[in-house]
């Protein structure tokens, strides 16, 4: 009997009758509640139907009945692994409607927290991806460092996951004393720790066997489906909004967008590891250039200076935290609409806000990168053996609350 699937599995060893298997919604390796209806011919997946919506909380409808400040903490819950990006995209959209110009110190603090968040999100992905593939020990390595980042965030915001730290016009409070020292120590330590992961993962023959040339995403397919972020950069498309869109203050830092050219599961792993190293570089530069310097220094200088000059390095506009204290109850952006494009850890998060001049947003639309990643899943796993499913799906870094919103 001839090879039906083109995967090297002999046809005479396969069952001839197709079988329908239901995976999920409650399944440990679906990273949430995704349901897949899979049509199997022997070991080979013939067709896949993803069913989503089990975590739909109606985030867009909830916005319409709440004021801007009431909605702000809910935004965190859209993607719980990278809360800062969601907060940032909602804040940037509302700020451009309300025409609030953010002080540079607040922007720098935003960049530092966002990049730390990118690392912690990628570490979580690394742990769960390798756990899906059957490797248990990377989980402990990744969580060791993630814990340190989470502790930094706890120190800063008081929360470990849902930070609610940004507000319209800036950030809510200054860095605590000693925070910068802790962050710098962590940045110094991190690259060595990334080397540790690479030592146990990158050249591991079992890992290579399961990820090389598996789930190849061509750049044309990726663009056609609207895949963004590390998944698209692993296919060789240089699309990094931090480089081209110049939101926030990213144009003041020297960093590379990380590319790989095969587009398989292994490349998606390689791009994310490289991105974590780049994030460390950005954080180090941002801490160095932070306007006003460390909070202890700023406090003393500001007390001594007291000149109230707009351009002063210590008491001027750029070393403030918030552009303009807005009234939490009566905050009313003018009529208008704005879209913010933020390069989050999974791709481009787009937040579209329409304001009708009242206290409540008229319409909020969230476009999240994982939504597209689930859509392309059938393209990648059809005609592959069943055992490749998790090697492909895990590498796409899908977070289900973000898909369903």
């Amino acid at each position, binding site marked *: 009997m001839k090879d039906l699937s083109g995967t090297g599995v002999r046809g005479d060893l396969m069952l001839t009758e197709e079988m329908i298997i239901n995976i999920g919604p409650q399944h440990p390796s679906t990273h949430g509640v995704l349901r897949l209806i899979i049509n199997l011919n022997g070991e080979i997946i013939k067709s896949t139907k993803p069913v989503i919506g089990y975590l*739909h909380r*109606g985030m867009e409808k909830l916005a319409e009945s709440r004021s801007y400040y009431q909605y702000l903490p809910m935004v965190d819950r859209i993607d719980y692994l990278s809360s800062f990006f969601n907060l940032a995209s909602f804040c940037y959209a509302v700020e451009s409607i309300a025409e609030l110009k953010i002080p540079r110190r607040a922007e720098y603090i935003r960049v530092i927290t966002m990049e730390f968040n990118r690392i912690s999100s990628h570490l979580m992905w690394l742990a769960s991806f390798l756990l899906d593939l059957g490797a248990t020990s990377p989980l402990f390595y990744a969580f060791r460092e993630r814990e340190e980042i989470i502790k930094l965030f706890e120190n800063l915001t008081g929360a470990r996951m849902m930070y609610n730290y940004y507000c319209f016009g800036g950030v809510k409070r200054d860095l605590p004393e000693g925070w910068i020292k802790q962050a710098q120590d962590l940045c110094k330590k991190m690259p060595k720790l990334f080397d540790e992961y690479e030592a146990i993962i990158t050249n591991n023959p079992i890992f290579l066997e399961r990820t090389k040339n598996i789930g190849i995403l061509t750049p044309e397919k990726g663009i056609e489906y*609207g895949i963004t972020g590390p998944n698209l950069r692993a296919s060789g498309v240089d699309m990094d909004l931090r480089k081209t869109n110049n939101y926030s203050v990213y144009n003041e830092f020297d960093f590379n967008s990380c590319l790989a050219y095969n587009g398989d599961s292994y490349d998606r792993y390689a791009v994310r590891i490289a991105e974590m190293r780049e994030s460390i570089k950005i954080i180090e530069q941002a801490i160095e250039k932070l306007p006003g310097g460390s909070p202890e220094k700023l406090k003393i200088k500001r007390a001594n200076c007291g000149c109230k000059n707009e351009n002063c390095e210590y008491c001027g506009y750029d070393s403030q935290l918030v552009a303009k204290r807005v009234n939490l109850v009566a905050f009313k952006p003018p009529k208008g609409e704005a*879209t913010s494009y933020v390069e989050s850890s999974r791709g481009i998060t*787009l937040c*579209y806000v329409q304001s009708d001049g009242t206290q409540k947003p008229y*319409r909020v639309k969230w476009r999240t990168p994982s*939504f*597209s990643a689930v*859509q392309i899943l059938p393209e990648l796993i059809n005609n592959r053996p069943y055992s490749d499913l998790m090697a492909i799906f895990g590498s796409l870094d899908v977070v289900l609350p973000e898909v369903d919103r």
Partner: protein
Amino acid sequence: MSNLEDKIVQNMGENPAIFGKLLLNNSIEIQSSVFSSDKTEIICISHENLLKTVDFLKHHIETRFDILFSVTASDKFEFFEVIYHLYSSILKHKVIVKTILDKINPEIHSLTGFYQAADWHERETYDLLGIKFLNHPDLRRILLPDDWKGYPLRKNYIMNDERLIWNRR
């Protein structure tokens, strides 16, 4: 046509409406071209011209909008607004295309012929706002259950569905 061009120039101030002018020069009718609060160009077109405009924007050498970020809509009481966010991965620019639909029986052509990404985004818009996309391969609800009544993001949606009763405990 010249009136419209004047209007665009006045609206823009210093920002030139690049894509709006390009469309006019290639004899594709647009209704207006304005800028949103974050300086992105919004091109408003009539829904009959949608396929022609998107075809032009995707393939013309100066636009090359090859990524569809999202399809969404907004209920404006008198009419629906359907909003497309386009981005070019080659030229790194973005544009928003808007069309206006009637409140009664809203129907518009699907963009699945141009972008595969439109498939799920249009299903989501159909699910939450009840806008029908013609020639869509598989127009079903995506986020809500198949037997859900009504379209939640419409402004006249009444939230007293019997399935929501646990919410009022």
